[in-house]
């Protein structure tokens, strides 16, 4: 059924569409600008860029990818994202499974004990001292261990698990399946939608995390992509200093500029997110809607 729109409705529509389009442009344009800047000819780009790239040059990318810190940072970021997410999903979902069992001894106490960690925060320095005491300084495990049992994810998964029909677990029990088997073959597969959601949350969180790197990891081999970007931002001339001999450095300085370097690294950092993000958006939305329903 189509209802004919009144004049007021059409004015309202115009108003709403205009604002939405403007806001969309404000959200997207900075990304677009950085991308077109990064593929422009660095020397011409200095004159200013607005809608289209000026010239075309992949020279900055080529030079950047030749330095070993970008490649290694990519590997570290991918590794922490992959292993961190895997561990978080495994631990948080298994713990959620444990606390959904009504027969568990001290169930409420244990659940509260874990959930309270959402609200208490010891602070920067105590965290720093403890991580150091655990020998996680300059250690890859620092990136993946501390977030493995995540209270917020546990609430989401537990809420979801409680909505599953009890009969499945009961019948498996009668057939003689043990707890690990029931978890692995029945409960976990049924939780796929919520696992996908927290998986996506965790991936984005891991990819964007850098404070742990900043405070506790100085080793060059373990720098994350975000940190490398931050360092380049603060040391515009770092690149030219890095490449060994001076003749080489002069040649590079002639073809690329500090701004073009910044723009290229930014693209390298956000591109993975921008590529997967539109496909994952529905999981985010599902997650926040479930998050609104507290556990």
């Amino acid at each position, binding site marked *: 059924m189509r209802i004919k729109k009144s004049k007021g409705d059409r004015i309202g529509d115009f108003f709403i569409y205009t604002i939405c389009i403007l806001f969309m442009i404000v959200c997207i344009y900075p990304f677009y600008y950085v991308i077109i800047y990064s593929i422009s000819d660095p020397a011409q780009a200095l004159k200013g860029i607005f809608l289209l790239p000026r010239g075309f040059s992949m020279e900055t990318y080529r030079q950047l990818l030749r330095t070993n810190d970008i490649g290694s940072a990519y590997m570290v970021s991918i590794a922490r994202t992959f292993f961190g997410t895997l561990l978080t999903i495994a631990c948080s979902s298994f713990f959620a499974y444990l606390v959904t069992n009504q027969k568990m001894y001290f169930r409420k106490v*244990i659940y509260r004990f874990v959930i309270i960690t959402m609200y208490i925060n010891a602070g920067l320095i105590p965290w720093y001292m403890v991580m150091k005491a655990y020998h996680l300084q300059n250690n890859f495990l620092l990136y993946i261990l501390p977030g493995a049992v995540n209270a917020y994810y546990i609430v989401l998964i537990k809420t979801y698990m409680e909505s599953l029909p009890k009969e499945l677990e009961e019948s498996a029990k009668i057939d003689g399946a043990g707890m690990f088997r029931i978890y692995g073959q029945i409960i976990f597969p049924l939780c796929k939608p919520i696992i996908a959601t927290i998986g996506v949350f965790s991936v984005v969180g891991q990819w964007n995390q850098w404070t742990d790197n900043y405070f506790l990891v100085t080793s060059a081999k373990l720098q994350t992509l975000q940190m490398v970007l931050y360092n380049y931002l603060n040391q515009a001339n770092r690149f030219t200093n890095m490449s060994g001999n001076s003749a080489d450095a002069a040649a590079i300085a002639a073809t690329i500029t500090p701004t073009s370097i910044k723009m290229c690294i930014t693209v390298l950092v956000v591109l993975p997110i921008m590529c997967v993000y539109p496909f994952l958006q529905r999981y985010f939305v599902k997650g926040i809607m479930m998050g609104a329903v507290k556990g």
Partner: protein
Amino acid sequence: MRKTQREKGLIGKRMPEGKKFFLVSIPFVIFVFAFAYIPLFGWAYAFFDYRPGLSLLDCDFVGFKIFAKILNNKNELIRVMRNTLAMSFIGLLGMPLPVIFAIMLNEIQNSKFRKLVQTTTTLPNFISWIVVFTLAFAMFSSDGLVTNICKALGMDVRNNLLGDNKHVWIFQWALGTWKSLGWGAIIYVASIAGIDAELYDAAHVDGANRWQTIRHITIPGLYPTFFVQMLLQISNMLNNGFEQYFVFYNPLVANKIEVLDYYVFRIGVLTNDYPQSIALGMCKTIISVTLLFTANRLSKKVRGESIV
């Protein structure tokens, strides 16, 4: 009696299920204890005259002297609290924005366009503050795009926005809003979807126009969600976050941008005064938790429902 015997016979020597689940959960409890509770013991340092390198046992117990020291450093404390509360207060004033945006999204009939708007406007939420800084740098630095446009229009841009001391709060608020507005709207979109459709039908039959429907059905329907969000925001008053203020910090804006989270970092990491930093962090957490539970009690009283 007979039943328990039968149970015994059936299960035999097998462990009760509840005990098994409990035992398996112990490693997780220890893990959480190690990563979330052990750092709390660090709060003890706030009561000792600690210097890095020493053991806590070798330090003198000084009671609340360090807290007194923080309070005595009035100028600094007032400045930091002013910045912290200013950012939180501006944030509170901006809270209706995601509501308005959600209502607008809901009014878009073309579902493809609506999805496009939602997807593009939530993207900024998923980039780190470092990337936000590079984007802001590309736009607002002294040879950034926006600055150049302003120059071309003949505006005074000697101070670019990144180093503009007068507009720090509003600029930081705008960046935060840019990053989180689309994301923040999702929760309201979800609660609009939860409003009884019959109400809209009834309003339509009664001849209500669009504005009247929004005014009398949608907005009242969003009150509960808004109320919860507001309480959470208030209880997070002291937690502006660290990353944003860290990446946008520079000497030109230092006195306006230093919020509590940055202050804790500066005292602890840059000046290396562990006890003072820990004492500050401790006060921050205790006040935040108190606020949260007060808000929770308030919510229970007003709505009969808790928020945590």
